[in-house]
């Protein structure tokens, strides 16, 4: 596991993001945070992270729209879509078409998050964002 990989967590649910960030940091990953898609795009433009955890439903700019805009300029940055399990499958499919590294349902355990992250990091080595 590359300890130096920087992770960007994009979620308006601050408390959820807090736990996620704490857990990742505890595993040795430097974590940055953004609260909506627009803010995330700005951060990526300034200083691109190695992996992005992107929520779907957010104010100002949602995860799907942000992903679409990101893919216009960056086709390789690994993005993991963070979803609520009860959301409709249409959004999953949409994000899948746009090229993502994986999904992380919010209700899953943090250990599962570790597995999803591993897959995303493998993508960096092979140079592909999609699964």
């Amino acid at each position, binding site marked *: 596991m590359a300890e130096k990989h920087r992770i960007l967590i994009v979620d308006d649910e601050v*408390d959820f993001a807090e736990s996620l960030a704490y857990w990742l940091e505890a595993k040795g990953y430097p974590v940055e945070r953004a609260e909506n898609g627009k803010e995330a795009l700005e951060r990526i433009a300034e200083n691109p992270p190695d992996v992005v955890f992107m929520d779907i439903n957010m104010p100002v700019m949602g995860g799907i729209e942000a992903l679409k805009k990101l893919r216009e300029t960056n086709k390789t940055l690994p993005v993991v879509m963070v979803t609520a399990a009860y959301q409709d499958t249409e959004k999953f499919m949409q994000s899948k078409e746009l090229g993502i590294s994986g999904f992380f349902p919010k*209700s899953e355990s943090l250990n599962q998050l570790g597995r999803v992250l591993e897959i995303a990091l493998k993508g960096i080595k092979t140079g592909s964002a999609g699964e």
Partner: protein
Amino acid sequence: MLEQLRVMMKNKPNLNQRFILGGLAWVLFAPAAQAKNLFGSEQTATLYALVVTILGAFLAGYVLIRFSQKSGTARFKSDEKKKRLAQPQMTQQTDKKTLLPAIMYEMSKMSGSGRQKQNIAQSVTELVTHAVEEQMDTMKKDLTQHYNKIIEEQRRNEAVLQHKYQVTLADKKQTAAVLESIAEGLVVVNNKGEVIMMNAAAKGLLEVEDKDARTGHSLLDSLGEKQMVSLVQPSNKKSRGFEEDREIILSAKQESTKKVLRASNAMITDENGNTVGMVSVLSDVTKQRELDQMKADFVSKVSHELRTPIVAMQHALAILSDQVAGSLTEEQQKFVSLSQRNLERLNNLINDLLDLSKLEAKKMQIRPQATAIGPVIQQVCDSLEAWANSKAVTLTQRVAPDTPEAIFDQARIIQVITNLVGNSIKFTPKQGRITIEAKRSEAEDMLEVSVSDSGPGISKEDIPKLFGKFQQVGERSATDISGTGLGLAISKEIVDLHQGQIYVDPNCTQGTRFVFTLPLAPLPSSTEPAKKVEA
């Protein structure tokens, strides 16, 4: 007869009549002339002559008429006919007047004073007239009575008829008024789809003009709605009586004016069982459907809103319990576990609510496929083993060796078995025993899965309540996790979706035995070996 005589007197008698009259006079008056000598007194003789004359006159008249009828005195007859036709009622009225001169004429031929003759003639006339009048009166009275009787009867019959008509009319009006004023729409169509009857509510619901709702008009013409075909065309199903309700969506240009109608249809059949028409009761369920949708949306929204903080708390507690944020003392670990357990409960409650709202909205999809039940039971036992162990409750699986595969949605049936076993663990005291059994049902061609425990059992009064929503029966131990009361209701819905049945075994005398059935797979491809695993 007297009249005829009078007429004969007035009109000049013809040759035959003269001859007869002459003959008669001679026969009668010859003895009368001799009578003076026989009776001694002239008066007595006159009276005799008078009586003989009257009798003779009657006789003569009678003979004359018979004769004239036979010989055909045309003029006399036709005159008489004409007179009768012209003044039929005159005969009666003039009887007395015409009778008197006739008698007077006859008496004038007799001897005696004119005054006496006139008096006698008067008396005889009075007598005859009186007799005739009396007879006439009696006949008149009889006739009048008879006539009145007939009229009276006819009036009575008319009154009865009128009354019956009024009653029928009132009944008809009442029925029509009742049908017209009920809030539900009522449409009666024949088998050609033509309206036989349509009340005001139905016209309003279907937005049909009065002219289109008239009897005999095809409902299809005026509605032009594809959905309406189902309403007006009786289905080909051989249904007797009520069909299942149908829902009709009346589309509109604007979403706000869209209507959802529920039609309860009943076929009208003739004595041979042929469908001759259909009665549809329509009710507007638009508001109901809107409310259902609102409820579903609300539950979905609330579930989402509730889950978000729960998920945040679960992750925070996981960081603590996994000691990512530093080591915990035994006491700290105990309270973190308590929080986690209760969060899990809250999460399950929300999942149950969401499941139930999906089931109620008929949105739950099951993906049934041929599956072996053995591994499914094993999976449930594995997940509940720790909980059962904590209560020193033994879980036993018993799957018969020849148990065929059944058709079910694995995830949903795991949910059902987990619920049943979980309930049993909750209610079974320490050192208890829970057995999960699967076999081919003896009674029907189904797979039968049962969960029996050595718990306190369920009272007979409580059994019907079991599968209701938010129902919890029996005494639960204070330390156990309480359920949502939705588990059995959801299990029932899931089993129903699989075309199976779920019930409490009524023959179970010790503890409780829940049974549910699932349809068997058409061709069992494998059989599960018998297992007996002590958990």
